[in-house]
Structures are given as C-alpha cells and as structure tokens.
C-alpha cells in the first residue's frame, strides 16, 4: 500500500516538504502540492457521488473475479483489499477524535463500539444496526455486527449460482484491519442473512462475524480480573 498513505501528519513546526525531500528520492512540484502540505482534515466531511464508489467497487469485484477460482477465494481477495484501509482509518479516525478521547480502544467492547459508530459513521454516514456478542458459550471469542443494508452492496445483485457470495467481504476486511491495527487480531467475515421473513424488509442484511484470536480473549479475561 505504498501508493496511498492517509496517515502521515507533518511533524509540528518542521517544514515537512524540505524534511521529506532530503530523505527520499521523490520529486515534488515547486508549488508545494504534496500530501504533507494538505490539511489532514480537509476531506473529512467532503462528499462524492455514490456512483463513483459503486463503479470503482464494481471493477474491484470484476477484476478480483477474474483472478480467483471460487467464492471463498473471491471473498478473501476483497477482504485483503479492505484490510489496509482499516489499518489507515484506525489512525486517521483516532487522530480526528477530540484530544481527550484520542486513545486507542483498550478492550474488545470499546474497539467494537469504535467500529460500529466512528468507523461506520465515517464510511457510511450512519452507525451499524446492531452489535451482539455470541450467545454460544462455545464461542466467547465471536461478536456480530449487523448492517441491514450495506452501502457497498447497494447496486450489486449476486447471481443465484453464487448466492454464497457477499461482496461486503471488502468491509469485513476494513473491520479486520481496524482490529489488527488496534492490537486485537481477528478474522472477520461477511454473511448474508436477509432471508425468510426478515428478508422481506432487509433482503441485503449482512452480519459481520468478528472472531478474535484466542490470545485476545485470554488477555481480556486476565485484565478483567485484575
């Protein structure tokens, strides 16, 4: 991901360009138009047409589809493409929090709340629809984030023969990137659940299953005791 780096605020008080220029072989325009001169918050609330996202995402899916053998493989690839975005957004969104809450999440619940509110709001302009912990005692490491209508899937109709596919695997990758970046390594997958009665209302309903690595749950239990 060397080609898009959202999280490199210039060092305070330093002429960023000169400093960078002496370290790298990159050329910069004399106008000083570099990412280091650009206020990091400038595009915080800027908007673009959803169409531009839809076309890019559609091409990402089509391109990935040509290079994979099965649905799982395709979802994995979309996940991998979302992952670096999550890593970067974690830092970027924390940086934009008010100073006193700029600390990174320290437990699973705080992390998941950050994801379902700050991350969701930033990407999709609304919070996620639900956050639940697995009620199964066998899987205390699993959490579920629900989105009734994932924005990334708005224009996508998966053909019947591929009905296992959920392109929101891309969003799962973003979530996974945030978890990994925050020190809570996890595996995140997207599952379509808009079937049956509920499907009438939310045919695209998706559950993001967040499965934390055993050491995360272990650490949490240990910290909870002390």
């Amino acid at each position, binding site marked *: 991901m060397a080609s898009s780096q959202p999280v490199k605020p210039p060092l305070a008080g330093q002429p960023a360009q000169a400093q960078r220029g002496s370290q790298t072989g990159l050329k910069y325009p004399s106008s000083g138009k570099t990412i280091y001169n650009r206020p990091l918050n400038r595009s915080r609330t800027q908007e673009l047409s959803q169409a531009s996202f*839809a076309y890019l995402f*559609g091409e990402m*899916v089509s391109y990935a589809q040509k290079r994979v053998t099965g649905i799982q493989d395709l979802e994995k690839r979309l996940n991998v493409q979302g992952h670096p975005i999550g890593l970067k957004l974690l830092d970027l969104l924390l940086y934009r929090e008010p100073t006193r809450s700029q600390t990174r999440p320290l437990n699973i619940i705080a992390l998941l709340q950050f994801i379902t509110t700050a991350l969701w709001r930033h990407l999709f302009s609304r919070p996620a629809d639900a956050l639940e912990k697995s009620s199964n005692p066998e899987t205390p490491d699993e959490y579920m984030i629900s989105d009734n209508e994932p924005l990334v899937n708005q*224009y*996508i*109709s998966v053909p019947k023969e*591929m009905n296992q596919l959920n392109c929101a695997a891309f969003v799962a990758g973003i979530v996974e990137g945030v978890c990994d970046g925050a020190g809570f390594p996890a595996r995140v997958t997207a599952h379509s659940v808009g079937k049956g009665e509920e499907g009438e209302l939310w045919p695209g309903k998706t559950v993001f299953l967040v499965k934390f690595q055993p050491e995360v749950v272990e650490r949490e239990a240990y910290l909870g005791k002390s």
Partner: protein
Amino acid sequence: MSSFYILQISFPTVDTPQICTVVYALIIINKAGGLVYQRDFTEGLNKLSVNDYLVLAGTFHGVHAITTRLNPLHPPNEPPSGIEVMETEHFRLQCFQTLTGTKFLLFTEPFQPNTDKIVARIYELYADYVMKNPFYSLEMPIRSEGWERRLVREMRVLNSR
C-alpha cells in the same frame, strides 16, 4: 425532441374503454435489437412465448430504424428519433431510445399520464441497478434481483393510484 411520430392505429372496439391508468408492461431492447428484458406489471395480460417476444423485439428494432428515415424533409440538425409513441384505443406504447441505443418500450393504458417521466425514471433505475451491478454483462438479458425488486415496487405504486 426534433421529430415526434404518432402512428394512429385503429383496432375494433367492442365496449367503451374504461378510463383508468395502468402501466402494463416493459420491454428493453439492446442496441443490436436483442430482447434483454420483458416484464408485465398487471395480471391477465396477453402472453407471448419467449420466442415471440424475441421476434417482436427484433422486428420493432427494424421498424424503428425505418421510421428514422420517414421524414420527407431534409434531416434536421440532430438525427431523427424514430417512433416515440404508438397510440391505439386499447393501449399506448411509449418508446424511449437512449443516446447509447438502448430502447425502453412502455405499454400503458391509453390515458396513462406522464409516460415520458415514467420511462425516464425507469432509465434511472436501469443506470443504477443494472449498469452498476458488476455481475451484469453488457447487452445480455437482465437478471438483477435488485433491479427487479425496485422496478416492480415502483410500478406497483403507480398502478395502485
């Protein structure tokens, strides 16, 4: 629109046509004259076989092409649009051809108002839910569930007025 053709075709009427507004059906023809979509929005319509629909699409495509050359005057600045409306006593056919060559054929009650607006709205749905779907192959039959769902919902709302 520079050229606007109205073909008046008479069909024998048995009883007085009732004044109500209904969108009957939609047909989409690709730029090569192939049928890519056909859908009824009300019950009890005349059904054609799949093959007949294909023939109908191809034939209409050809007739449409001929009507672009009917103008006895010198062609105006822009190319003639061909058939845009066909009115009969029982139904009205609105044909909208996009600048990319796709044709939307909307069959309605003869008194259905705003058919041009309805077709424009259908075109928007098509641009969103057909063209933005990465699993749709261009010029091929449309089988996008999202498009189907929204189209039927909007036409149902129109028909229930």
